[in-house]
């Protein structure tokens, strides 16, 4: 897809954006970076958000972090972008380094780290929003010439140390991330990234291409924060996983191997496998005879991907829009969780038209050498953290297949549940579990009663608060440990407990575990002295399956408005008990 031009991005009308949910972005910078706003607005619009950007004053970063600009930062701020350029922060380190003595370098370094820590703390006092802190760029022409790289006290080494110190400072905060600008520079090349004219005319060092690249990078974080990351890569086969057409060229005729012309396909497959190992679900969607495709998977010596990596496949002659819908149903995912990688203009334009929710990775036919980089560059699958659960998702899908087979064997549902030997574990959030809990609130769409998205910082605050409990659910069974798969946030007040959040990962749906979790949470509320539980349901496009979750468990309808419905239940509720098909329940919250 052609990159958007600056004028096009700028021309997005407020009227068109006004209906979208807001994304409040604050920019603090010691350079002029205003044109970035157009690209931020454009990227936000692409994921259905209205970016409202608040720009700080030029080079007022510390003052603003300490609260000098009341409109800039607040509890509602979603994202804070910080750009500190070394030239403005320390002219001597950036441009007059050769003349500095060891002591002067050390003093400058300390001053900068102090400054950074003060800015971070100040921002955090004003907002729990996500902080994206952009690192210092590596010098392109190090101050000591070729000797610089040899010396531990060279300019490059000093900038690296500074970045390291800043990264450590950022890591001490939840929901704060250090963004490496050097790959952004390298991807488009420094001459295309920096513009000396506007640096001198207006302290604006970056080209439009650079700002577009920075906005792309920013939105990898925003998509992950807002639950807009994709979960499943759907792969075409012919001319994507291998060169040629298996149905015509046969196993010996397709291009796939360690040398040209087969090596680009093998490298592409490795990149796909890397995504699988990060927790991305893989599926196939191919117009072929199914047996031909599996013959390649099972029989070709140079295949990197194997059958066990593929969670679902639609290999037939039906149209791809129908097949993508089938895959989404089978995998229990929304269409907006899918990315289709395909080389056919016909297929990709069909999907763009019929299923606009599906993101399309168009692989240029005839230049397979580019495919691997395009996949690596897309960033649609990026997540803020990679949890143990993510890394094992592939195994989880295999286990799910084994469970399905067992279900068929055992006949009735109760005895099937019993045969799984499930053990739910329930506990309160702590620093170890907070990142996964935040991730679940950001990613879970279907079994999610209120779809409130939280960053780790907010979860930590709720967990520490007397007026709330953040409760997690783990589940293991005879096939493995699924990790943390459920979250409940109870807010206490006025003698009642409100289910602010109640969600379950789609990997454990249909196993009765929600009932055990609910009952445990109700017991907790009763033990904290609540006489009433309040359940909320906020409808979204995705969570229709839980519309009657509370009423089906004895809650009475209490109120309904545009936002959703409320239900109440008197506590304690002795009639509600955990299902008895669990091997046991390990509760750390029963007081």
């Amino acid at each position, binding site marked *: 897809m052609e990159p958007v031009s*600056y004028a096009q991005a*700028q021309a997005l009308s407020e009227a068109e954006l006004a209906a979208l949910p807001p994304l409040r972005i604050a920019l603090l910078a010691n350079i002029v970076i205003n044109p970035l706003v157009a690209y931020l607005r454009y990227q936000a619009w692409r994921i259905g958000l209205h970016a409202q950007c608040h720009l700080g004053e030029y080079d007022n970063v510390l003052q603003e972090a300490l609260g000098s600009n009341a409109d800039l930062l607040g509890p509602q701020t979603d994202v804070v972008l910080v750009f500190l350029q070394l030239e403005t922060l320390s002219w001597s380190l950036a441009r007059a380094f050769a003349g500095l003595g060891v002591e002067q370098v050390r003093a400058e370094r300390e001053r900068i780290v102090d400054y950074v820590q003060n800015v971070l703390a100040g921002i955090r006092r004003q907002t729990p929003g996500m902080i994206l802190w952009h690192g210092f760029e590596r010098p392109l022409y190090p101050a000591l010439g070729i000797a610089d790289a040899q010396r531990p006290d060279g300019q490059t080494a000093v900038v690296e140390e500074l970045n390291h110190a800043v990264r450590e400072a950022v890591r001490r905060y939840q929901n704060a991330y250090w963004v490496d600008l050097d790959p952004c520079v390298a991807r488009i090349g420094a001459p295309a990234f920096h513009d000396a004219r506007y640096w001198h005319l207006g302290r604006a060092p970056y080209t439009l291409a650079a700002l577009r690249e920075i906005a792309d990078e920013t939105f990898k974080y925003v998509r992950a924060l807002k639950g807009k990351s994709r979960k499943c890569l759907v792969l075409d086969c012919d001319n994507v996983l291998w060169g040629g057409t298996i149905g015509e060229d046969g196993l010996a005729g397709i291009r796939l191997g360690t040398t040209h012309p087969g090596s680009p396909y093998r490298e592409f497959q490795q990149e796909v496998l890397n995504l699988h190992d990060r927790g991305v679900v893989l599926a196939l969607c191919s117009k072929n005879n199914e047996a031909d495709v599996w013959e390649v998977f099972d029989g070709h010596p140079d295949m990197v991907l194997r059958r066990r990596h593929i969670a679902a496949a639609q290999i037939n002659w039906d149209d791809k829009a129908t097949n993508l819908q089938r895959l989404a149903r089978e995998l229990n995912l929304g269409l907006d969780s899918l990315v289709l990688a395909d080389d056919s203009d016909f297929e990709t334009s069909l999907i763009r038209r019929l299923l606009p929710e599906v993101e399309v990775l168009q692989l240029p036919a005839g230049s397979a050498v580019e495919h691997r980089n395009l996949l690596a560059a897309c960033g649609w699958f990026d997540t803020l953290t990679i949890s143990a659960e993510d890394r094992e998702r592939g195994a989880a899908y295999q286990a799910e297949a084994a469970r399905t087979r067992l279900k068929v064997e055992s006949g009735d549902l109760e005895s099937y549940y019993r045969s799984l030997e499930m053990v739910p574990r329930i506990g309160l959030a702590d620093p170890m579990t907070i990142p996964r809990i935040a991730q679940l609130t950001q990613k879970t769409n279907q079994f999610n009663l209120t779809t409130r998205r939280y960053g780790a910082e907010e979860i930590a605050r709720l967990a520490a608060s007397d007026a709330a409990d953040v409760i997690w659910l783990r589940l293991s069974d005879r096939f493995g440990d699924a990790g943390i798969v459920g979250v409940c946030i109870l807010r206490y007040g006025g003698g009642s407990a409100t289910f602010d959040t109640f969600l379950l990962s789609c990997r454990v749906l249909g196993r009765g575990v929600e009932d055990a979790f609910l009952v445990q949470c109700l017991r907790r509320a009763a033990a904290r002295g609540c006489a009433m539980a309040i359940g909320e349901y906020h409808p979204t496009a995705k969570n229709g399956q839980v519309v009657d979750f509370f009423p089906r468990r004895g809650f009475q309808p209490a109120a309904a408005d545009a936002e959703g419905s409320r239900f109440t239940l008197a506590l304690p509720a002795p009639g509600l008990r955990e299902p008895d098909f669990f091997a046991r329940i390990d509760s750390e919250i029963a007081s």
Partner: protein
Amino acid sequence: MSPGPEQHRARVARVISQVMGVPVGEVGDQASPRTLKAWDSMGHMNLMLALEEEFGVRFSDDRILQLLSVPAILAELDLVLPAGGSHA
């Protein structure tokens, strides 16, 4: 028909309208910082960046400070674009 100043005029007006956020009809043949409120120093930098992208050209730093009206921009484009058309 070879593209000439008139075609540039329409494109320049469109870019100004997009960057300054005003309807293209309000841009005017003599538009300048005096006629458009949004054409301040920041607006000027944004406009220069957008025009460079639109026409595939690069203004020198000295010229950037002088291209403060539609006629000045059109004259500069005539100068820097190869005869017969633009890159874009």
